[in-house]
């Protein structure tokens, strides 16, 4: 093999990123002056990028492949949107007086609806909306504690306890997923909520137990209606 063939081999190794700093510097210097090696480098680089793509996570996380938690996006976007909003110039098209009046009007409308109980369904939806808002706020809060496992995480915020999972298969007919909690000093786990994942295999639920008392959370597949003790091997177990 000629010395230039060896250089071409080193160009491939450089493109792949497997040279020592000294070797990499030598190749970089050579690439500045050698058209042939530079052409080889430019030819091979897309192949190296393709190697990266071979690790690309699954589009359909319920297929059982590697996939990031949907909560990750929520955490990142919360920060990005906060910073984007801060970067926008303040709008002054509406005067302060108008804004205050609009807020007062909204409060008045809300109070009127509440006082006369005009629409029970509205109350339920408002309560559900408030719960969802608190869930989203807790799950994406930087103050929350996250305890990750392979397909999800347990999140605690003050005394609130959440279980989030993704990539879950639909349970067989007559079966559900059931969460279990282990309280401080307890010898056995206690039954918590049962659930089935949404389309796409994701589940987010607030567990009724207080996060301050719970030291571990587990999940198993159980008969519909739940069990008093796990009847199958847990698919997830995380210590808090």
């Amino acid at each position: 093999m000629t010395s230039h063939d060896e250089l071409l081999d080193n160009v491939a190794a450089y493109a792949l990123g497997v040279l020592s700093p000294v070797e990499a510097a030598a190749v970089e210097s050579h690439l500045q002056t050698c058209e042939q090696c530079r052409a080889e480098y430019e030819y091979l680089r897309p192949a190296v990028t393709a190697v990266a793509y071979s690790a690309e996570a699954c589009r359909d996380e319920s297929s059982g492949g590697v996939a990031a938690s949907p909560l990750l996006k929520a955490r990142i976007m919360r920060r990005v949107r906060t910073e984007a909003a801060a970067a926008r110039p303040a709008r002054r098209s509406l005067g302060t007086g108008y804004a205050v009046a609009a807020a007062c009007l909204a409060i008045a409308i809300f109070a009127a609806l509440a006082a006369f109980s005009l629409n029970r369904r509205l109350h339920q939806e408002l309560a559900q909306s408030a719960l969802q808002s608190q869930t989203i706020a807790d799950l994406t809060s930087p103050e929350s504690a996250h305890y990750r496992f392979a397909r999800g995480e347990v999140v605690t915020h003050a005394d609130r306890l959440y279980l989030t999972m993704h990539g879950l298969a639909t349970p067989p007919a007559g079966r559900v997923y059931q969460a279990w909690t282990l309280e401080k000093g307890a010898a056995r786990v206690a039954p918590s909520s049962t659930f089935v994942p949404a389309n796409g295999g994701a589940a987010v639920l607030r567990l009724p137990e207080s996060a301050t008392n719970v030291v571990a959370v587990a999940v198993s597949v159980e008969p519909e209606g739940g069990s008093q003790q796990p009847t199958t091997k847990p698919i997830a177990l995380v210590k808090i």
Partner: protein
Amino acid sequence: MERVRARDAGAFEALYDQYHRLVYGVAFRVLSDAGAAEDVTQAVFLKVWSDPGAFRDGNFGAWVARIARNRAYDIVRSRALHPQNELPESLPLQDAVEETAFAHIDGERVRLALAQLPAEQREPIEMGFFGGVTQEQIARSTGLPLGTIKTRIRSGLRRLRAALQETVAV
């Protein structure tokens, strides 16, 4: 990226949706740890958001995958799993050269193309890319001469390049 530079959260979200599986997948492959891979993914995308000027045109996927790999290597190093690692922390020229991009590239297509390579070529490529090791370390761990490893890496990359060129537009 122009819109991300203008602090457009919607444009950033579109980038995240398109590339997070690549970033997370590379980090997970290097680290074999879902939590750490998510940390890397978060760090990479927040870097994209906070310093969009660091990307100087070219192939965004290649750039972001490289950052993910380097961040994952940093974690491997910090865990001292590879204390003898000699890889440079950054490869400045690689960031400066605009890369030809395959159109419509995706993981499944590349996995199929990689699977077509002879194992003797595929394995040193994957060890090098995801293992954070130098070609000398690959040679030592496989017991093969360094020259053989170099040739196999180059031959494998050329073959992969040609295979993908046959199946996708460039």
